[in-house]
């Protein structure tokens, strides 16, 4: 069975926001109100001149053990067979428990367009199912987002996942995220 996931290469990301723009346009988010499915905050460490900047693209982790699915009363939050966590907008009543329960700040409330909680869908219905890449992955100029079957060693995503080079955020929470990060390391 396919297990969709994403690898984020923190060594390449420059926080250009192309992925954010692509997602906003592709998925009709409430970007005008600052509510989006993906964001790229910048973290800066150190004091001049020993400084390091990391841009960390964040989105739904499509966890294998998703806390949002566990807490949803109506079953609106669910996980597909191929590992994509989705929201059934018709069943969602907007109690926002999932928004609170998500450790990755991945969800937002769409009171206007969908009248439900919304989040990254890996562009499942609108792209992946048609054999295309999610909008953010396709547009990324630095190849900082890599999408595919994490269990398939012949795919780049699978290889990176299996190599152990890419790691999840907050593994201590037991959510088993399927978005894994290749860390940035500096030697200088």
């Amino acid at each position, binding site marked *: 069975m396919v297990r969709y996931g994403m690898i984020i*290469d923190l*060594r*390449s*990301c*420059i*926080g*250009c*926001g*192309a992925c*954010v*723009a*692509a997602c*906003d*346009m*592709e998925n009709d988010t409430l*970007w*005008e109100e*600052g509510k989006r499915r993906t964001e790229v905050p*910048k973290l*800066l460490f*150190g*004091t*001049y*001149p020993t*400084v*390091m*900047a*990391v*841009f960390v693209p964040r989105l739904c982790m499509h966890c294998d053990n998703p806390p949002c699915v566990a807490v949803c009363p109506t079953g609106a939050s669910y996980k597909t067979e191929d590992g994509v966590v989705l929201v059934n907008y018709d069943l969602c009543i907007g109690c926002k428990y999932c928004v609170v329960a998500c450790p990755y700040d991945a969800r937002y409330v769409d009171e206007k367009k969908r009248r439900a909680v919304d989040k990254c869908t890996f562009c499942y219905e609108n792209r*992946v199912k*048609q*054999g*295309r*890449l999610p*909008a953010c992955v*396709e*547009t*990324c*100029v*630095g*190849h*900082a987002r*890599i*999408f*595919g*079957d994490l269990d*398939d060693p*012949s*795919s*780049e*995503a699978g290889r990176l996942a299996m190599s152990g080079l890419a790691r999840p955020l907050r593994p201590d929470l037991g959510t088993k995220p399927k978005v894994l990060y290749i860390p940035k390391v*500096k*030697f*200088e």
Partner: protein
Amino acid sequence: MASLSLTRRDFLKAAAAAGVLASIRPPEDIVIRTLKEVGAEAAAIGECSVPALCRMCVNSCGIIVRVRDGRVRKIDPNPFHPASKGHICARGQSGVARLYNPDRLKRPMIRRDKAKRGTWEGFEAVDWDTALDETARILKKYIDAGEAKSIMIGGGWLPCGVYKPYVVAFAKAIGTPNFVGSPPPLCFFPKAFAWAVTVGVGGHPHITADFENSKYIVVLRRNLAGSLGVPYAWRFARAKRNGAKIVVLDPRMSETAAIADVWVPIRPGTDLAFLLAMAHVIVKGKLYDEHFLKRYTNAPILLRDGKPVKLWVDEETGKMKYLVYDKVRGKAVPHDEAIDPALLGEFDVEVDGGVVKAKPAFQYFAERLEGFTPEWASKICDVPAELITRIAREFGATRPAVIDPGWHDPKYSNSVQTWRMVAILNAMVGNIDKAGGFVFTAAGRGFKSKSLPEARVDVQWMKKKGYVVYNAQPNILAYYDAIVKGDPYPIRVAMLTGANWIRTLPDAKKWDEAFRKLDHVIAIDIMPNDTVAYADIVLPDCTYLERDDPLFGVGFSLDAGVATGMKAIDPIYDTKPMIEILVELADRLGKKDAYFKALGAMIGVEGATLKAYYEKEGIAGIRRAQAEAKGIKYDDLLSKGALVLKPKEMLMGTMPYRKPLSTPSGKVEFYSLKLLGIMSKKGYSEHWDPLPTWVPPKVYGKAGGNVFYLTYGRSPVTTHTHTVDNKLLASIARLEHYAVWINAAKARELGVKTGDKVKVTSLATGETVEGVAYVTEAIRPDTVFVVSAWGAESEKLRVARRIGGVALSKLWPMFKTAEGEDHLYTFLPNAMLQEVLVRVEKA
């Protein structure tokens, strides 16, 4: 159903089977499906896609525009475009927001009260016929009076770049020589000139580095990942993934510096010293590529007192010949007869019946470099000497290594020599037109520059002012004197397309004066920007999504190719594409035939044919005529949007190995004969020394206390001022993208915190602007930085006004500083936009 992982091998197999050129190399894991397949699926959901070319910046990446229910929904990258190869940046994605921006110019307008220039008052909306008739009437007045040359036609990067022929044709048709694209003195010319005298070409679309195959990359005076030219950024990212070591010299940690292995926070304007010290280390350590220097450069040229011992023209080739010392034969010979020309040493040379002592240029330069030690550079650049030494050694010992050939640098009086040093260092490690090194783009091979006609205002003005290089590139700054003082002769009418000179030219006050002085101002544009507010007639242009594009050669790409754009939807407002506006004006002036003749000459199609095709299909007709003239399959072109005509493997590694360069000697000019020519006429100057030497920036050592070096640059969410009024980009922009960067320790001294309002006063113009502070550890204490695109003052740009930003054009002086010091760089048009100190205070 296409699978999600297509390896490169699989694709090439499939591609070969499909007859597609195997040269299109998608990044791994990308799904390549023809536009037809995508189109079929899209049609199933009522969506249609057309290929187009993005106009959010000069790179003109290939895009696919998806339309559903008559609305543009999404812009996707076009994987067939050889320069952008399936990637689009945030600006490209936000084209949709540009199209539907309610702030856009929606209909032609005329204003008769010139006193209201600079405001939005007094405009009345008119229909196109009225607007075009009035414009034609005005132009006719001057043309008929024999004063066509008092009409200036100009703009920013749009008519300076790919649309140049279409605008120049109009200028030619009405008989004015004064077509001015403003970028050269404010952007690329110093870098372009330096490279052109070294390797023959140097413009943006003509040179680049083969990042992805390089093992060591040094970037200076450029934010190549962050200002995001997609054709560069994706290759640069590949380099990183392939394990290249990246070193970035920048006073602040730009996006490029953020992903570099080493960030060198160099003192602004002192990169030249760093490079000279690098050369010192490389020469001392014999890390240079001897073979390359001997065979493919003129480094062995014998000099005496800094000038060639003998220099003459080869009658057959038209190239310059010179003497070198052949170590095998033990004497001086013409360079193409030498078996092993010496790079070092001093030799007795027989010439004109006498014997003189001569040294190869390389020896000459090596001696000069003796003093330019890392210790010397360390004090100037404020970089530890060990770091300079280490980077120099790594650069010299790694093959292939490359120093990025640069982009925008109108910043210092030493800009030209800085890029000369970059070119020389690249030549020293022998990376010219090699994998992983400096390369010519497809468009750059065989590019021949032309001199500007003498009849132009700027050529005459620069000649008068004693400019050394006065007819190579337009100089918009000259037009101020022409407009305001009639010097060298009056300019009375300005017809602008895609220009925002109030915000982009130095000294906004002066340009306000100039725009008020003109008899007539006509503006073709999409947005009501600060400059359009000075117009008497506003002719609203279409966005790139609402019109067809002609056929263009692809710039910025290693593969040779052509690309075009198709109209996605009909104009949503009462606008016309610029080309149509120009044709209709030409028609009204009885110059339609002349227009197409001039245009045809520039794009390689017969004038009458061009006109006939245009009359049938509009701009699409021009494209069809071009395709036919070039022998390109039209359906293929339209189905893919971009075609590769020659893959890079067929082009790279040829210059100067199999084809001579368009330099005087045909070789890489380590010692610049062009600069020698200038020196012979004008006498010696370190600015045009045929071999680089140290030239300090004018502002060197003057920062301190609350006086800072001013630096500016771009961001991934802006291009120039035309991107600031875009809802999507504005919503992605972070404070650092529009605020004034101040070092944390300095900010503490000034009592400034992030978000505080600050006053920035230019010591050069005396003007003060207000901005918001971004306090960070990621910038030098003596430097402030701000992204250049913002600071819009037009109240009609509502999104831009909400963000604010800094109006940089008020801080840059044009000819003289506020204290009366000369700010003119008369070597070549170079505005010196960072030879400016600013005082920063809490507001």
